[in-house]
């Protein structure tokens, strides 16, 4: 096994890990790794954290102003940092990132957080910044300790973090913390929920949470939407989707995108920058992976001949949806710098991948991530 990580888009604080801080609009190779697979790429406002499958190794780059990556005085990293050593955590089980914070599940099933959390994002009470101090937790605060047999999954966006905890017996408790000004966690509304609160409980395990800027949606293992709360995009009524299986739900900051079993795509929310995909997206495309950034989307489509293409659409001002010109050559290093020529992007090809490779995509704050495994 081995993989290449490609990226493009916003890079003002080094969050692409390319060794510089220029926005790029042509996919660039950021990491080449000879073992493991990438399990997850998660993005904060200006930092990126990458979790490897198997080893539980973590690499991170970008803004470290509040210690959201590691301790120490470095404000911005423009190259990837190995985190397991500085974190005193040999194996990380899951990771999530929001605006200026990072949360992990460590090898002991303890949920820990670091960075800045002025809206309760760290989930540890009044502490709003783990700072750069090298305390006993390697700069982490302890949010909650889960049972050793529990399956714990983390999700985050903007000013909220959600932990889905499922026991071996199948009982599932979903915790949330962070901002609650739109009742995204609980009613009544409050400015801050600074410790985990139960936002949903069930014996029908939740598979994942899809988070927008001021709302969250929970989806069970059959692909049914079971809960939605907060300032939901207009036109989206989750009750309408109740009991419909096989859905894939993805969120930008201000929109919800639903792909159903038949391949239909429906989206709700802001569309000033072409974020909604139902209009521009040919229905006959076979999509193998979908992910949303803050205000853009990324898909992998497979053609009949097996060839694979990565496409992006939506708000592309930082180069995150590629360039529209057909020449995507990255041989000239100066031509990859973003020229802001693709501000509102139609569905646009950003990378072509060989048929025999496995491709996964992720999106951040105007950043696009493509992982190609051999």
């Amino acid at each position, binding site marked *: 096994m081995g993989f290449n990580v490609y990226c493009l888009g916003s890079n*003002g604080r080094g969050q692409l890990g390319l060794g510089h801080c220029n926005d790029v609009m042509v996919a660039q190779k950021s990491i080449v790794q000879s073992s493991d697979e990438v399990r997850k790429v998660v993005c904060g*406002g200006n930092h990126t954290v990458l979790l490897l499958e198997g080893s539980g190794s973590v690499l991170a780059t970008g803004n470290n102003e509040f210690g959201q990556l590691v301790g120490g005085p470095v404000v911005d990293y423009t190259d990837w940092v190995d985190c397991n050593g500085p974190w005193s955590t040999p194996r990380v089980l899951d990771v999530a990132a929001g605006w200026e914070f990072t949360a992990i599940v460590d090898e002991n099933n303890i949920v820990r957080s670091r960075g800045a959390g002025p809206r309760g994002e760290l989930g540890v009470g009044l502490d709003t910044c783990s700072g750069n101090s090298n305390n006993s937790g390697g700069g982490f605060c302890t949010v909650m300790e889960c049972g050793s047999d529990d399956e714990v999954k983390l999700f985050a966006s903007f000013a909220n973090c959600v932990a889905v905890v499922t026991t071996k017996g199948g009982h599932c408790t979903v915790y949330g913390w962070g901002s609650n000004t739109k009742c995204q966690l609980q009613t009544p509304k409050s*400015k801050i929920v600074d410790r985990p609160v139960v936002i949903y409980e069930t014996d029908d395990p939740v598979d994942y949470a899809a988070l927008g800027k001021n709302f969250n949606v929970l989806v069970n293992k059959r692909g049914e939407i079971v809960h939605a709360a907060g300032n939901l995009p207009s036109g989206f009524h989750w009750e309408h989707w109740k009991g419909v299986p096989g859905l894939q739900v993805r969120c930008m900051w201000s929109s919800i995108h639903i792909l159903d079993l038949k391949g239909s795509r429906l989206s709700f929310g802001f569309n*000033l920058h072409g974020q909604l995909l139902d209009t521009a997206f040919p229905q006959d495309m076979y999509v193998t992976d979908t992910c949303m*950034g803050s205000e853009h989307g990324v898909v992998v489509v497979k053609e009949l001949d097996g060839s694979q293409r990565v496409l992006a659409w939506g708000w592309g*001002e*930082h180069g995150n949806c590629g360039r529209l010109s057909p020449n995507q050559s990255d041989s000239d290093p100066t031509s990859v710098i973003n020229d802001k020529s693709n*501000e509102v992007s139609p569905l646009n090809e950003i990378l072509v991948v060989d048929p025999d490779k496995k491709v996964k995509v992720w999106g951040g*704050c*105007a950043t696009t991530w493509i992982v190609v495994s051999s």
Partner: protein
Amino acid sequence: MSTTYDQIEIEDMTFHPELEMFTYPCPCGDRFEILLDDMFDGIKLAVCPSCSLMIDVIFEVEDLAEYYEQAGIALPEGIAA
């Protein structure tokens, strides 16, 4: 139809007393900015220094009093304390 990215209530903005400025995260990774004094003068648009997006800030002039207090500066004429 509005051409700003979003409408944000003042309670969702972060106030920086030392800068006498409010900020709010922009989807590009930078922050929308607006000065307290500009808001008192009736400006409602917060702009991002790194991209073309802007937001409308939703507030009443009376809401500003507590922020003048936080910044340790005198209330301008026209706001009831």
